[in-house]
């Protein structure tokens, strides 16, 4: 049936669906560039969930109370679950998890630059929840309306959990700022380190983000990087005030006229450096993922061999 439709008609139908704000599903025709963009974005997102387990995972064994250990373990486990949903969403586009994992460990696909910073104190667990999960929510809530159905549906589930992570992170910080002087200092010091990298999570400024307009036209992206960054700053400033800590930006001030906070320019050369592989933890993160994957090879092979034997015994 579809054989009778030429490329132009298919393209027209695709555009109608996008224009009507409806969903493209795996069996629908889609332009090759749309498919490629989605695979790249979903894979990068899935990789971020998995690599993101490492910085916080660094503190599970040392969590300072059993309740904090349970909360952190559950959170990091959620991130593995997010990775699974997202790889499954990518698989609807004709790629598979093993292939994408290979691209991650060989550096052919990227993950969020934020996870190339180290988690150096227990306050980082709270600050990552507050700022990093918080920025992820700003980025991801619009994706719940992404034009590609499986991605949009995965995001609905993920966003609910991210919001819980953010609350738990903030709750840890509340406990710490109401604790000892040393705990308060840890929160401030951690915020100082994570503030700018969190702002960079929204990507380069709009002027240097050449793919944004195509992604917006396709309904994959709903807002520009700068719009999302502004939204994040506006939401976060009152939260920092409630914690009684200072965000490390002397240029931060409410602008009555704009109805938004003004803030200083992040150091974009640092973002470029981290993206291109020379952040503080890039090599460590990839080496860790690669080791775990390689050391699991014999286990995956055994499972496949066992499944084949079971099949042939039937």
């Amino acid at each position: 049936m579809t054989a009778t439709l030429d490329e132009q008609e298919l393209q027209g139908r695709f555009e109608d669906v996008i224009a009507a704000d409806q969903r493209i599903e795996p069996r629908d025709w889609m332009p090759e560039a749309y498919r490629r963009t989605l695979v790249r974005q979903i894979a990068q997102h899935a990789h971020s969930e998995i690599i993101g387990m490492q910085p916080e995972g660094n503190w599970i064994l040392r969590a300072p109370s059993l309740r904090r250990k349970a909360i952190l373990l559950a959170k990091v486990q959620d991130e593995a679950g997010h990775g699974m949903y997202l790889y499954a969403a990518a698989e609807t586009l004709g790629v598979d998890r093993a292939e994408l994992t290979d691209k991650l460990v060989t550096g052919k696909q990227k993950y969020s630059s934020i996870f190339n910073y180290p988690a150096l104190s227990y306050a980082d667990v709270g600050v990552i929840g507050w700022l990093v999960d918080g920025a992820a929510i700003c980025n991801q809530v619009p994706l719940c309306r992404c034009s590609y159905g499986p991605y949009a549906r995965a995001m609905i589930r993920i966003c609910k959990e991210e919001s819980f992570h953010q609350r738990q992170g903030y709750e840890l910080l509340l406990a710490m700022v109401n604790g000892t002087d040393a705990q308060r200092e840890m929160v401030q010091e951690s915020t100082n380190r994570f503030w700018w990298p969190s702002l960079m999570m929204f990507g380069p400024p709009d002027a240097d983000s050449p793919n944004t307009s195509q992604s917006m036209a396709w309904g994959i992206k709903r807002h520009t990087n700068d719009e999302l960054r502004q939204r994040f700053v506006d939401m976060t400033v009152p939260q920092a005030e409630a914690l009684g800590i200072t965000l490390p930006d002397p240029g931060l001030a409410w602008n009555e006229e704009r109805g938004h906070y003004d803030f200083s320019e992040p150091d974009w050369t640092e973002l470029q450096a981290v993206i291109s592989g020379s952040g503080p933890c890039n090599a460590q993160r990839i080496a860790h993922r690669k080791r775990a994957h390689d050391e699991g090879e014999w286990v995956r092979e055994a499972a496949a061999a066992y499944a084949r034997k079971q099949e042939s015994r039937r």
Partner: protein
Amino acid sequence: MRTTQEDHDATNAYQSLADTVGHDDPRWAFGTGVEDVQAEITSPVPDGVDAADLARYCLMLGDDALICAQRLAEWVSNAPELEEEVALANTALDLLGQARVLLARAGHVEGSGTGTARDEDALAYLRAEPEFRNVALAELPDSLDFGRAIARLLVFSTWRLALLHRLLASRDPVLAAVAGKGVKELAYHRDYAARWTLRLGDGTPESHRRMQAAVDAVWPYVEELFRTSDVERRLVGAGVAVDPADVRAEVDGVLDEVLSRATLTRPTVPPAGTVGGRGGRQGAHTEHLGHVLAELQSLARQHPGASW
């Protein structure tokens, strides 16, 4: 920016953040599923039961779960597949949940006469090695060898499930409640470990070799699981505890069946020796426990008196 449902959703994720509940909210204290646990933990010591014995017994079962959970948590971000990440972390969480209730009960019961109850964190973070009462099996390293992790989990969960089944009838309401929730959890852990034992034992020649080596490595620590301590003996008489010697036949039966279906051989290695007749239940541990505790306790001990 557009004002749509989405903006509403996004802002909602933040709105109540500053009003986030205080950190002693019971909803977060023990996770979900053990709602009335606070009430149970403070329930009176059953008539005719020695409080010190009951506290010690709760520590034994609680420490088994805590230390095993800590070992399982080492697997986070190291598992062979994402499904295993989720399953191992989930198993660790279940055991950690059991440990928290049992340690809280131990602290309450121990302090009931003196008015100096220790909480779960004082017990987990401020005791030294000889005060821990877990069996050696829980503390053995698996060095991120998945076969070792599965072999330990198979033996541990089969044994603990058999204990908890019998504790359903314990006269101590907390032990009975932990058993009630725990049998479902342990049944899943045992099933998970058994399925992987089959896959690895009957998978490739390499996985067969590695799984057999893993079973051989944990086997010397099986004997201790069935050794009855004095505390247990006294509490069995009071209708509170299980005699671990009584679960031996059941555990052996399950392990034999799993091993044979997995084409593995039941090891014939001799049991690990004791320290003058003392084992984990008496506070005599392997050299590994000190390292587990060094990591587990380091941050809490750096900040004496801080609450998190």
